[in-house]
């Protein structure tokens, strides 16, 4: 179908658009993924409207109201020291295949991406200081040319093969407890655990409940590390695939900066779960500039390359991509991959 830019309306999401967004989403992604399961309205609402850090959605609509294209993001509240700022992860960018050839370069991806960046990115109140994502190569090429995407790094995975499960020793002094849901206590725990970390998504109760307790499509296992009766760290895992490899996924974990004992106790518990579940490997993702990257390697994890690369778009010279690379704590759970 041919449309000229004059035929389409570009605007942010409005309540009521979700059904048309989902129709296009399910058509676009079923085209490229044979294992695709249609996204439900509940799942969409969870990802965007219920996210305590907010949604960012820019749409291109045909005259009949059909969603031709979307550029969207999942908000993240991020602690940079005592400051609270916003980042967002770009997700679910799409253009209805029926319209892909209907517009000359640079196409709908850019047509929605530019006003998206203008509206949601910046140094103003509520705007995203950093937009980032894990694009497919074609989106990266267009994004680098038209939307100021910059490479942060290639994404490596941390992988513990079953043959090295035995290397992860359980340290004494910390015991592990499974738990059913994150509670308000994690607000204060996060404040303590973020000390020493230059930039980290706020992992308070609101975030953790939304991300892991309320997710309608995945079931996560939560473990807490306890020392002398006090919670000193948590780990969230689930079975799944990362970069086409099946295993037990280390979705998220946080301890106090430098509390290697708590982290190792959590990893040891993950090994027990992996063994019980018959998994061939444990998979995680961490930035290489944080001490945990070495802790996991010393515990037997190997660093291996993936097909993913992390890109970003900074708003403010201080927080450029190099800064992000050197300072940002993230895990698989910060992405929409798990």
């Amino acid at each position, binding site marked *: 179908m041919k449309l000229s830019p004059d035929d389409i309306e570009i605007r942010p999401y409005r309540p009521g658009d979700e059904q048309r967004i989902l129709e296009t989403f399910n058509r676009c992604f079923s085209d490229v993924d044979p294992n695709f399961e249609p996204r439900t309205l509940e799942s969409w609402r969870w990802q965007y409207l219920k996210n305590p850090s907010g949604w960012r959605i820019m749409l291109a609509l045909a005259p009949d109201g059909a969603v031709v294209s979307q550029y969207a993001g999942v908000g993240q509240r991020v602690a940079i020291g005592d400051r609270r700022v916003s980042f967002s992860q770009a997700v679910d960018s799409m253009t209805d295949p029926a319209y892909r050839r209907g517009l000359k370069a640079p196409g709908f991806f850019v047509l929605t991406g530019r006003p998206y960046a203008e509206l949601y990115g910046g140094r103003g109140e509520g705007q995203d200081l950093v937009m980032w994502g894990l694009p497919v190569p074609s989106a990266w090429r267009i994004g680098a040319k038209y939307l100021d995407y*910059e490479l942060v790094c290639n994404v490596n995975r941390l992988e513990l093969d079953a043959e090295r499960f035995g290397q992860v020793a359980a340290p004494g002094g910390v015991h592990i407890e499974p738990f059913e849901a994150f509670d308000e206590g994690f607000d204060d725990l996060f404040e303590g655990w973020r000390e020493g970390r230059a930039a980290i998504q706020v992992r308070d109760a609101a975030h953790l409940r939304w991300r892991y307790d309320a997710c309608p499509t995945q079931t996560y296992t939560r473990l807490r590390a306890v020392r002398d009766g006090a919670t000193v760290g948590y780990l969230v895992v689930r079975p799944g695939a990362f970069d086409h490899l099946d295993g037990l996924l280390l979705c998220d974990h946080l301890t106090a900066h430098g509390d290697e004992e708590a982290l190792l106790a959590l990893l040891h518990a993950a090994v027990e779960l992996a063994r019980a579940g018959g998994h061939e490997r444990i998979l995680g993702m961490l930035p290489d500039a944080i001490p945990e990257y070495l802790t996991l390697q010393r515990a037997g994890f190997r660093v*291996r390359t993936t097909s993913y690369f992390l890109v970003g778009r900074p708003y403010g010279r201080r927080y*450029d991509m190099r800064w992000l690379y050197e300072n940002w704590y993230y895990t698989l759970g910060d992405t929409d991959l798990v």
Partner: protein
Amino acid sequence: MGEIEIRQYEPRDQAALLETFNLVFAEDSEHARPRTVDEWAWAYERNPAGQRIFLGLDGERVVSHYAAWPLRAEVQDFETHFLQIADIFVHPEYRWRKGEQNLFLKTGLAYFAAFGSQWEDVVHFGMPNKRHFQLGKMHEGMGYDLIRPHGMLGRGSAGPLEMPAEVELLERFDEQVQWLYERCSGAWGASTIRDATYLNWRLVDHPTREYKRLGVRDSEGVLRGLAVVRRVPQIDPNLLTVIEWLVPPEEPEVGELLQRGLLSLAGEPGVHGLVAMFPDWSPWFEQFQAWGWLVHTSPYFMVGRSYRKSVDIQWLRRHWHYQFSDLDWV
């Protein structure tokens, strides 16, 4: 200050070039010491692949410099040059002159206009400092792109260890090194051609740097693998840096011997450990971890600019094999 002339280097510029060079590099590095004529000639006149130098001149005074070491490279199915950008500078009195285009950019743009080519000089690369990278990135004409921030493999010394009997110290490289390169490079999409001429220039005949070259041969004397190390002050004077590692991944037993050779050298007094660098897709990146090396973050990042569509930055990220020996400062 008069009109600045930007042009290619000519032999008559050598003395003035060295004078400014030593003035500039003495400024910002504790490891800097004056570069001698011999060292300069080694880098720019004796490089078997030639020279690429652009200068800014105020009269006879050299006020800016944008240069590269050409390296013969094999990429996909043809031979070309990869240019390692080195020794970029602007004379302190000529920086940030109001109302004028920055001399770094002016000289760099002239360099790229002259030497960027999809046939002869396909890829220009380097590990710049953060300031040069930002400047290069800010100006579209410079075309700097990040290939990857670089993790480094590292490990501590294991104490005194004997050098394996199968490992020998190599004095010079002969034609066998090219056979070895050809056995290794089949899996690489792009790499510097490692023949005797290049490696003797790069790792044997340097006027001041002393490299230790280890080799393993088979019973008929054929070179099966080599490793070259040196203490690099900019990385850590107490670490041995693996400058070159050329071993076919299908011969892990050769790698094992050479790694033990490296550990033996690292067991010498005053050496605290070893550091090495591989693209993360290299089988040796995995194997070194299996030997107990860990991947550490580093301040280094590889940037490049490609003049050939089929050899773009994304392709280089996945297919270009390089080592520290491809970089001038090690």
